[in-house]
């Protein structure tokens, strides 16, 4: 016969009262646990999804909406921006990485994101199967998309306009799946990634741009083939080529550079290897290149021809839609993607196009102080910091959570008071039993412990039930939200804060039992035996 068994036996004397107390405690505990699990995982998920993104450049409007739309994919984007407007900031020396992204289409509710493969790095998402896209209208799908749709590598699907199901179908623009991502527990699981060109192609501008790109390639081919032996002719043809070049969707800066290029005197240039090197450089350096160019010697025209031709071939290869070089890569079964591949150099992007947003990563945290302010002062694009917006958002949510948490603690305090009332009430009717225990040899301390144990037992039963209910509810909620909203919560988790909560709740039980226990401790045995029936 243990004290625990005695405590249980005493609680069974008033089964209804005990059950109500346990239920009250369980309700309060479950509420607290639910809020704790959801709040913590919500915060963690938001932080996890924003990991690696220091700043989002997008259309003017609500910064919260911009962050929600582009980082969490939980809202409609405020609009598009011209990639050219974002370019100065993408090339800013304080920026380590700039990843443009285009939204607007979806497939069965899963968003299609036109971006660079580097986008997946933000979510530490590696390929589980297949390879990265190498051509327009090829796509890599997240793990949840694969699970939900049953699609896999080699399958095709037709995108729909809009971010929810029911948008009009983009007929004749089937995507082909080339890869499936590993599950990451982030929003990437529910995304369909493709190239920016795919989005542009599906939305019309791409058709035009394809033509431009083809033309661009042809121009460069022409450029490669022109005869530099005749310096005058070279100037003229070069000028024409670059004039053609200007017509297509190369950025203006590039175009200007070529115009400058056309205008300078090639007679004085050494247009051989140095010219080749210049073309190997990125477009952003064209101004500088041409300053050097002024000193070139084009004397060895034959050499110039070869080098120039090779340069433009490289240039073409780097162009976003020219994936010949890219195709030569082994994209087989490994997890590597095209990160760092020259084909995705941001300088090869088509800056005449529009994108929904550009995700920036800073070289150092100090950029967070100055860069957003400078960008927003410019007015052409909006800069929104995910950390700031999420903190603001969680602050708003936190007010609600705090209210619910206060209510839950009130429930627990009510349960504590109820346990106190139950024990105190039962003590009055059990004074004779307490006295008998003392007659049988129980010390005052043992009687105190016996009563505390009863309170603790009631609390522990409620707390255990509450923890179970809380975790099961979050698990069920997580399963529902996962399928309905793409938000991932799990009840199969134990937070360190729960250990403290558990101890706190048990202390509530002890406090609730303390007064009745002390009363029992102070029982005047002789008087009780003489008086109690």
């Amino acid at each position, binding site marked *: *016969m*243990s004290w625990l*068994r*005695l405590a249980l*036996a*005493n609680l*069974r*004397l008033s089964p209804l009262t005990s059950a109500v107390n346990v239920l009250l405690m369980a309700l309060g505990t479950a509420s607290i646990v639910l809020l704790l699990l959801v709040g913590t995982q919500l915060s963690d998920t938001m932080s996890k999804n924003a990991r690696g993104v220091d700043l989002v450049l997008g259309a003017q409007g609500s910064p919260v909406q911009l962050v929600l739309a582009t980082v969490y994919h939980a809202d409609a984007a405020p609009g598009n921006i011209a990639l050219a407007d974002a370019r100065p900031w993408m090339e800013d020396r304080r920026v380590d990485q700039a990843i443009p992204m285009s939204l607007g289409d979806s497939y069965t509710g899963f968003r299609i994101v036109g971006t660079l493969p580097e986008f997946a790095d933000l979510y530490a998402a590696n390929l589980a199967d297949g390879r990265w896209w190498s051509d327009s209208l090829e796509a890599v799908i997240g793990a949840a998309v694969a699970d939900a749709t049953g699609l896999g590598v080699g399958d095709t699907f037709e995108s729909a306009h809009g971010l929810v199901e029911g948008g009009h179908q983009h007929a004749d623009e089937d995507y082909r799946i080339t890869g499936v991502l590993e599950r990451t527990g982030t929003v990437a699981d529910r995304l369909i990634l493709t190239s920016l060109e795919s989005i542009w192609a599906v939305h019309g501008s791409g058709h035009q741009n394809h033509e431009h790109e083809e033309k661009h390639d042809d121009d460069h081919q022409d450029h490669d083939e022109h005869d530099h032996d005749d310096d005058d002719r070279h100037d003229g043809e070069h000028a024409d080529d670059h004039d053609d070049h200007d017509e297509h969707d190369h950025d203006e800066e590039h175009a200007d550079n070529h115009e400058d290029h056309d205008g300078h005197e090639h007679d004085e240039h050494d247009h051989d290897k140095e010219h080749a090197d210049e073309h190997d450089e990125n477009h952003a350096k064209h101004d500088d290149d041409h300053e050097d160019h002024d000193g070139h010697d084009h004397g060895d025209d034959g050499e110039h021809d070869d080098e120039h031709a090779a340069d433009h071939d490289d240039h073409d290869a780097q162009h976003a839609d020219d994936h010949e070089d890219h195709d030569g890569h082994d994209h087989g079964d490994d997890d590597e993607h095209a990160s760092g591949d020259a084909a995705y150099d941001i300088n090869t992007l088509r800056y005449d196009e529009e994108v929904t947003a550009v995700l920036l990563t800073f070289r150092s945290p100090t950029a967070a102080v100055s860069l957003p302010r400078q960008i927003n002062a410019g007015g052409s694009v909006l800069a929104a910091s995910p950390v700031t917006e999420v903190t603001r958002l969680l602050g708003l949510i936190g007010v609600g959570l705090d209210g619910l948490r206060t209510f839950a603690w009130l429930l627990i305090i009510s349960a504590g008071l109820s346990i106190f009332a139950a024990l105190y009430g039962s003590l009055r009717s059990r004074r*004779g*039993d307490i*006295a*008998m*225990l*003392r*007659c*049988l*040899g*129980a*010390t*005052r*301390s043992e009687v105190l412990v016996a009563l505390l144990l009863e309170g603790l037992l009631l609390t522990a039963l409620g707390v255990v039930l509450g923890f179970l209910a809380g975790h099961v509810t979050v698990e069920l909620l997580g399963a529902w939200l996962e399928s309905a909203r793409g938000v991932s919560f799990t009840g199969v988790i134990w937070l360190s804060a729960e250990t403290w909560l558990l101890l706190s709740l048990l202390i509530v039980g002890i406090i609730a039992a303390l007064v009745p226990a002390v009363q029992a401790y102070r029982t005047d*045995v*002789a008087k009780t*035996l*003489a008086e*109690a*029936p």
Partner: protein
Amino acid sequence: MTAITVEQLRFGYTDKPIVDIETFRLEQGQSVAAIGPSGCGKTSFLHLLAGLLRPDSGEIALLGQSLAALSDTELDRFRGGNLGIVLQQFRLLRGLSVIDNLRLAGKLSRCTIAPERYQHLLKRLDIAAVADHKPSELSQGQAQRAAIARALVHKPSIVMADEPTSALDDRNAQEVIELLNSAVTDEGAALLVVTHDQRIRGTLDTDFDLGAIA
């Protein structure tokens, strides 16, 4: 060995003592009925001997141990290990079965009790059939027997009973006294019964008149 020794015992809730005993002795294996009218301090006398009350003056020694020399906790443990107490209302714990009431007494005595001991007592007191019953399921007689079994479970040296026959008719009163006496003396213990029931007079080894003292 002398089970109980009392010398010049005084106790009262007011200036006038309700317990005033010059001397009282009970030897091991003996039984005594301390008889007195209601209000004469019988229950207080029993509580004093059981260490549930501290006397105003005088000396009480049980089994040679002065109770005054023991702290409250030591007194509780001494009582649990050496005394068996049968109360008028029996006070079996309601949440426990008969056998569990016996086991609890065994635990609180801090003595090692063999499982056979419980069965022996249940059979000896003819309550084996209701061993798993709750007190509320017992008849008055069964409850009284269970209370006596509980008092004997740890083979105490002294058994004290407070008004064990007050609510019983003559036949049942006689039976209870005989049962208590035989059970206690079989165990070699000393028995003290405090009662106002004059029917008890002469049924035990000696009578001790409390009324004359008070």
